[in-house]
């Protein structure tokens, strides 16, 4: 049975009603995941910030999270994240599909074994899955979105957002660059849909807060769930993507 990982962010802590909790032990720490079978696939749901949103973005145990999915033999990861919208075309509550990122974080984002190609950081096949899934459920999905990933946990200053806008960044987040890098190192397919839970600081007068994030997340929870379920249905085994190549080369060179 094909195994799919789902990583959920702020406001998205559950996928199915009936899921079995499971703890995975990794050399970086324990990870809680929830298992279910859907559409003939084994689905592992991983709430990024923990079950009760207790780990802020810089303190999420990214290496343990991604390695746990690897150890569960997950090959493809579909992820959802809350972000701030820098590009004024992106409305609060709307969904975007990431195509590129610029990583300004300084946290550990490698298992330290080798250098991977990340020219195209997201799996093109999973991106296509999200595009199709959005069409199926009639939810607009903005494509070709570039994310700037910042350290957090604080939100950005107005000057920082203006600078990112000048660079052509569309959304600002705190987690996806790290997950994408680690997934690529382990040869796993990874793709993200982001939900704009606020306009980034200085773009409007509404200031960001976890409360606002959660409110928008709550409002769109059904839509995001439906999208994820549709994506799980559409996601098949890997065909032509090269997400696993660097990893397999590295494994071969060690044997």
């Amino acid at each position: 049975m094909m195994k799919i990982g789902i990583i959920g962010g702020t406001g998205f802590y559950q996928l199915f009603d009936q899921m079995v909790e499971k703890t995975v032990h990794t050399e970086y720490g324990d990870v809680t995941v929830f298992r279910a079978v859907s559409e003939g696939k084994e689905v592992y749901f991983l709430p990024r910030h923990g079950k009760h949103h207790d780990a802020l973005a810089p303190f999420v145990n990214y290496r343990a999270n991604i390695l746990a999915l690897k150890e569960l033999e997950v090959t493809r990861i579909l992820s959802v994240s809350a972000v701030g919208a820098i590009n004024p075309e992106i409305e609060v509550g709307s969904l975007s599909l990431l195509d590129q990122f610029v990583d300004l974080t300084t946290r550990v984002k490698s298992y330290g074994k080798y250098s991977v190609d990340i020219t195209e950081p997201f799996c093109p096949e999973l991106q296509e899955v999200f595009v199709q899934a959005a069409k199926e459920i009639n939810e607009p999905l903005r494509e070709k979105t570039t994310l700037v990933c910042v350290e957090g946990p604080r939100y950005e200053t107005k000057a920082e957002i203006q600078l990112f806008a000048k660079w052509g960044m569309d959304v600002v987040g705190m987690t996806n660059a790290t997950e994408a890098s680690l997934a690529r190192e382990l040869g796993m397919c990874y793709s993200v849909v982001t939900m704009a839970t606020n306009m980034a600081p200085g773009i409007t007068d509404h200031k960001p807060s976890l409360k606002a994030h959660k409110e928008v997340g709550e409002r769109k929870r059904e839509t995001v769930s439906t999208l994820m379920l549709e994506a799980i249905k559409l996601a098949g085994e890997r065909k032509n993507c090269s997400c696993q190549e660097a990893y397999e080369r590295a494994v071969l060179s060690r044997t």
Partner: protein
Amino acid sequence: MKIGLIGGTGLYDLFHTLTEQCIETDYGQVTLLKGEFEDKEVYFLPRHGTEHGVLAPFVNYKANMMALKKAGIEQVIAVSAVGSINPDIPIGGLSMPDQIVDFSRRRDNTYGQFSADMTYPFCPDLQKAVSTAATENSQTLYENTTLICVDGPIYETSSELQLFSSWGMDVVGMTNSTEAALARELGICYSAVTLSTDLATGFAPIPPDLGTHKRVAAINKDKVKALMVKTLALLSEQKSCQCAKSYNEYMILINN
């Protein structure tokens, strides 16, 4: 009323007598120097230690800001030496940053409890007091400047400065974004005044060094002091700012 003043040792003699106060924090011990100014208690915090022994990346920012919080201080003004990227700000020029871009990368700049709003990183009430003080003193103060904060201790390359200039940065410093972020997490009002001690153009005839910084700071000491004295006199406990909002919301959240 208690006010925190972070700066170099040149500000010491604002006060006739200073008493030392040692404050223990989870991050280390901090010595504050307490002086009286009119009806206000002013707590002076020498950022780099009393001998300027601690370089910007090694300052214990979390201990410093927590010590001010523990001393019951709600308003902090910081004086910093910076380099001028904007050619309109001359050496010896005083400016008041309005915005920050943080490019420091290897610092612990969070207490890790919640995500604080930093849209406007400085306290508008404190900024108003500094601005009014400059006007009343007939001092030139460059306002609405954007500071870019780098790790240091190394100074910037010519390319880095040209890049920062193309981004619209006015001054480059090594301390304020860290202090501002920590202050905001503690719900403390924070504002900064910067003294340009070199021209960070990448083409300046004299390259930056600590000696130059200290020399320019010494020459301009009276100017900075005059601005601080007037600002302290103007400060009041009446606040209309939102600096403590993120902190208060978090406190309510954890107490319920």
